[in-house]
């Protein structure tokens, strides 16, 4: 990998951060605070996720948040090379974790979209 590759994660971290600010605000409001204290129910979430707009938003949110979070963790780890001298494996491991998390996240959302099969 090119040693200047790190420009891309840095840039993506900024972009994902900026998008997340907006999306998370929506997500929080719709998902939790609009009727706060009411237990969230499967049916309620399912109803919301009937709209493709919300499905798209949730999927984008999932991917961005996983990237932003794991890249943030990577940044923290990179700042302490004394503990973890080789950053390549770390990046790779985190990448795999990220992919797995996204797949698992989609898997977890799937019942809502299909109607809880």
């Amino acid at each position: 990998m090119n040693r200047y590759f790190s420009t891309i994660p840095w840039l993506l971290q900024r972009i994902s951060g900026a998008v997340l600010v907006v999306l998370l605000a929506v997500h929080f409001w719709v998902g939790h605070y609009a009727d706060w204290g009411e237990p969230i129910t499967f049916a309620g979430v399912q109803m919301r996720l009937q709209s493709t707009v919300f499905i798209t938003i949730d999927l984008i949110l999932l991917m961005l948040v996983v990237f932003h979070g794991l890249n943030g963790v990577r940044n923290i780890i990179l700042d302490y090379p004394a503990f973890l001298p080789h950053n390549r494996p770390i990046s790779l491991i985190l990448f795999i974790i990220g992919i797995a998390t996204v797949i698992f996240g989609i898997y977890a959302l799937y019942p809502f979209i299909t109607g809880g099969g």
Partner: protein
Amino acid sequence: MGNTINLKIFRLDPENARHEPYYQTYTVKTKPGMTVLEALFNVLDEQDGTLSFRYSCRWAICGSCAMTLNGKCRLACKTQISEYRGTLTIEPLPGLDIIKDLVVDLEPFFNNYRKIKPYLVPEGMPDKENIQMQEDVDLIEPHIKCILCAVCETSCPISWTSREKYIGPMALTKVYRFNRDTRDAGGKERLEVVRGEDGVWRCRTIFRCTEYCPKNIPITEAIQFLKRKSVFK
């Protein structure tokens, strides 16, 4: 007559077999206008000849006497004793190996300096001087005031933890200083050195370098400029 201050000074003698650091407290009579460096000289001259620290110009132009004063990296010669009451803790610059007492090993710091071609790569060789407008000099004006005192680098938490990796705020400021010099033609090469993971991207915009720089150089601003240059290359 007069006030006193307690200097709690970090001590480490490499020639002592135990090689363990300890703190020693000295009481110094203060006078108006006294700097921390003068107080240290007072200790050295009157009380304890074994104390070691660096010094040279005594008016903040040579960059020798940077040290940690009550947890902040500052120049001893530029800091008035009257800023402190009671006890002043004096420690060596953090994040660097200690040679003796307040003297640290600056080799890693100067290594970073050497990495980035810290000299003008001339564009041409006119018979007389290069024509350069005062506005162009003003562009780099604060950055040419750098005295290589290492305060920025030792204030930076990222430099502490990834000393061998992160090129550090001083080197990045130098890159800025040369890259923005209208007479320079080596900007691309220098940017190549600092564009990587261990260059500009390791700066987490903490602002400690700018905050503590004794010459008030807007270091973070320079690094941010280099980041943008690195993206839009």
